[in-house]
């Protein structure tokens, strides 16, 4: 298991989801991926994407206009 991070600030949805999706594809089961975004929409879209694709959301937070989501790569 390893930790990774991507910065999608400045991108609007669904770009943060696409970036997260493409990064997750390169990771292994159990890896953690932190996604930073400046679009509050990511707070809904990334967890929805995780639910349908079998990944877990470990953390979700918002500070000002910046959101942070940590994904655990699933099946």
């Amino acid at each position, binding site marked *: 298991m390893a930790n990774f991070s991507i910065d999608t600030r400045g991108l609007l949805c*669904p770009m943060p989801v696409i970036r997260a999706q493409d990064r997750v594809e390169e990771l292994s089961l159990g890896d953690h991926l932190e996604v930073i975004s400046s679009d*509050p929409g990511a707070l809904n879209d990334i967890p929805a994407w995780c*639910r349908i694709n079998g990944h877990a959301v470990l953390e979700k937070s918002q500070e000002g206009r910046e959101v942070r989501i940590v994904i655990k790569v699933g099946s």
Partner: protein
Amino acid sequence: MSEAKKAAVLVSGGLDSMLAVRVLQEQGIHVEGINFYTGFCVEGHTHAIRKKDQKKDKRNNALWVAEQLGIKLHIVDIVEEYKDVLLNPKHGYGANMNPCLDCKIFMVKKALEWMHKHQFDFIATGEVVGQRPMSQRKDTMPVVSGESGADDLLVRPLCAKNLPPTLPEREGWLDRETLYDFSGRTRKPQMALAKQFGFKDYATPAGGCCFLTDESYSVKLVDLWKARGSRDYEMDDIMLLKVGRHLRPRDNFKMIVSREEGENHFLQGYRNRYISMRTTDFPGPLVLIDGEASEEDLILAGRITARFGKGKSADEVTVEIREMDGASREIKVAPISPSDIEKSWYI
């Protein structure tokens, strides 16, 4: 028992593709969704930008639909490749700058590539014969399957009975009898089927799935090309056309004027790429200047900026002009009178 056949379905987030997926699922097909992001999609952006929209439900309809249907969804970024589709559509444009037929051909072609790469068996869409004036006509639907290279691997479950049998039907993977024969612009059969499937909450797209079907957006896009002397665009251009009021007081420059706080904030992110303006002694919008503006032009822009701020009735307003490198200076101007703002300046 043999393994379930697999279909990749183009999922837009609207009702039709949602129904198409469910029809296939009812026949035991394993379905996964593909959603293409061109940069012009209605999903997402504007509510991310405008403050008043931020309280609204911000769901992405394609993701939401996938979740309702219990399918995986793959979102594919085609922003770069899509430029050629939009700039050089072989089949031309629809009522606005929407190259729907070329767009559909391109998306089906990409879906086909995806299908091969992931070892799926066929692709499907929620298209209905006669539903849309350009891409969903009896004579253009075969063009989509033919020119995309998908041919008889492309199934349209909602109107399959109006079309020649596809390979999945001929092979018995799908029972043609249980597919549908919808046609025309009416939405009634779709709504009835939605009811039958128990779908209560679904998105009803007005007109099309992207901004290119929108008249005012298309006008702004054409204006941008004309002013730049070349038909090209970057992602930032696409975004900025969705934000603010756009005015072109002179051929050589235009102004993007924020309308509210959310847009103000969004435009701030572009201050290192455009000259920007705002009034300092009164609250007012943030304005970006796109193009080559002379000193005289900047004064005119400053007067217009002042007009859109709270100091519009003042005799004199201070406007800060900020260069891309952050250097700024102030000018004092009289807000332009509304009658001097020509209607033709609004793009």
